[in-house]
């Protein structure tokens, strides 16, 4: 069974952390992953940096620009991760934009992910319709789970479609925004969280965007299986250094 599915069966709320590979320094990737696992994080999204990250706010944009300047490429990332399964056993997901994958070759990319032990992918600009028609068979051949986003504006019909194509979890974007915005959740978000929870989808939901501290993590996981933190973690290591994951994770989980 895919590590993501296994993790989702555990009887706990999941904390997932996103970080940009190759940031702050090119060689920080592996140690950040190992530290996150050691400190109790349940799942990790490894960001493959892109020059034009359309769905990201300033924090992730800046970390991506820096990572690219540091020399991060698809090849380099795969090379850094080649022995990752010797030390890390939690689910690992690569999150990145479609063009770098397209240039690497979608099948070659998936094959490499399987070899390394990557469990899933999140590709914000690969729409579910295109995925289903052109790429689903390839992803499945290499045992990869593809994760799709939904937002407060996504129609019920489309949520059901996304649920039917998904085989891991649904990434629930907390509010209409790019990453790293928002401060706290109000009634609008809570009623959206409730509405989705009540749909009884086949796939569990994990909430992301705008989760930055213990409070927002707790609010989000009241209605969902887990939550993803990205910008807030990147800000933390920007200010405190790449080795300072422990205090961040503690502050979220208390």
């Amino acid at each position, binding site marked *: 069974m895919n590590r993501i599915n296994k993790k989702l069966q555990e009887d706990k709320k999941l904390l997932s952390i996103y970080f940009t590979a190759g940031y702050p320094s090119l060689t920080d990737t592996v140690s950040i992953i190992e530290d996150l696992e050691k400190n109790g994080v349940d799942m990790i999204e490894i960001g493959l940096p892109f*020059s*034009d990250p359309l769905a990201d706010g300033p924090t992730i944009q800046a970390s991506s620009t820096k990572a690219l300047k540091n020399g991060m490429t698809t090849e380099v990332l795969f090379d850094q991760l080649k022995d990752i399964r010797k030390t890390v056993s939690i689910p690992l997901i690569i999150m990145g934009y479609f*063009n770098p*994958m397209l*240039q690497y070759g979608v099948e070659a990319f998936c094959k490499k992910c399987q070899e390394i032990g990557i469990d899933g992918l999140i590709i914000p600009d*690969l729409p579910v319709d295109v995925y289903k028609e052109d790429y689903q068979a390839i992803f499945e051949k290499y045992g990869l789970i593809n994760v799709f986003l939904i937002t407060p504006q996504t129609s019920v019909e489309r949520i059901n479609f996304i649920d039917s194509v998904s085989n891991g979890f649904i990434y629930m974007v907390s509010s*209409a925004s790019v990453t790293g915005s928002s401060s706290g959740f109000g009634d609008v978000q809570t009623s959206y969280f409730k509405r989705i929870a009540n749909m009884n989808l086949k796939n569990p939901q994990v909430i992301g965007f705008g989760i930055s501290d213990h409070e927002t993590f707790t609010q989000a996981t009241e209605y969902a299986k887990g939550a993803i933190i990205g910008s807030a973690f990147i800000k933390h290591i920007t200010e405190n250094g790449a080795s300072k994951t422990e205090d961040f994770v503690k502050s979220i989980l208390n």
Partner: protein
Amino acid sequence: MEGMTKENMMNYNVNEKGYYGEFGGAFIPEMLYPNVEELRQNYLKVMAEPDFKKEFDQLLKDYVGRPSPLYFAKRLSEKYNTKIYLKREDLNHTGAHKINNTIGQILMAKRLGKTRIIAETGAGQHGVATATVCALMGLECIVYMGEIDIARQAPNVARMKMLGATVVPALSGSRTLKDATNEAIRDWINNPVNTHYIIGSAIGPHPYPDMVTRFQSVISEEIKWQLKEQIGRENPDYVVACIGGGSNAAGTYYHYLHEPDVKIIAVEAAGLGVDSGESAATSVLGHEGVIHGCKTLLMQTKDGQITEPYSISAGLDYPGVGPMHAHLCKTGRAEFMSITDDQAMNAGLDLCKLEGIIPAIESSHALAIFEERTFKPDDVVVVSLSGRGDKDLQNYIEYFKI
């Protein structure tokens, strides 16, 4: 197009899935899906409404000043021993073809109940055209512009502000057109309900390339009857236009795409030279990839990171081309040429001296092909003069030390 007849020609228009051959589509984050889908479901319907057509045509006539003249450039024709006709988009209100599209899109936005308009701009021409129609309709207008472009296009920034628009500097990436487009898309993600994004060229996710092309197609619609009036036939031997994202070109070609006796020439900016590392000649330097929501030819690293183009002309300084043009290039329907900064600047000055017209530097690229390529004496060559050179005066002054 040897051996081509109207009957056996390929389809160069968009198909029902939003593709031109293998190019196009809508590679957008889910956050944009409701907006883009709303547009996709409505744009053809709205454009076909008699009310919409009437208002669009009326504004093009009374406000933009259409039809724009088709002018036989006698002295230029003598110089190159062929028959050159200039489609005078430079005479439109705000000085370029861009306004054809913004008029269409602002009417579309109103029909869809939108109250807030966003746009990206490079040189500021599209920004000015958007700010203009927002003033006309009383809608809020936010224009994203790269910090570097803001500095080098001060007069257009002032125009936009006078017209009531808010100009927001794009501070990310290379701080030029590509990044302004990213910022506009992010704004749309953050404002998914009340906002319409007026894209300024035949780029972006489906249905944008097709919608922009249809609004710009008035250019070739007019060329047809104007040529008929002037020389007794609708079809020239060649249609020529410069390509940034490709909106003036799409409009100039549109009604000729399926006329096999009309040859199409697309002119890209070579910058300092195609091999110089400072160029925007996407058809030569680009590879298939995804940029700003569509699959097309774009300039990128081997690794799929989008690279920075260069051209003296801010309007051609874009790392991709619209998907229709990628298809015209790949299928050989259009002949692609690239013109350097120097060639364009000289062709621009030449037009001033020979015809008394100061062209936009973008348009000067299209004019420069006559030095590069010979035409027969009785060939009829229609060139899109996409804009006037007022916005480029500083560039001309510095380049020619005037």
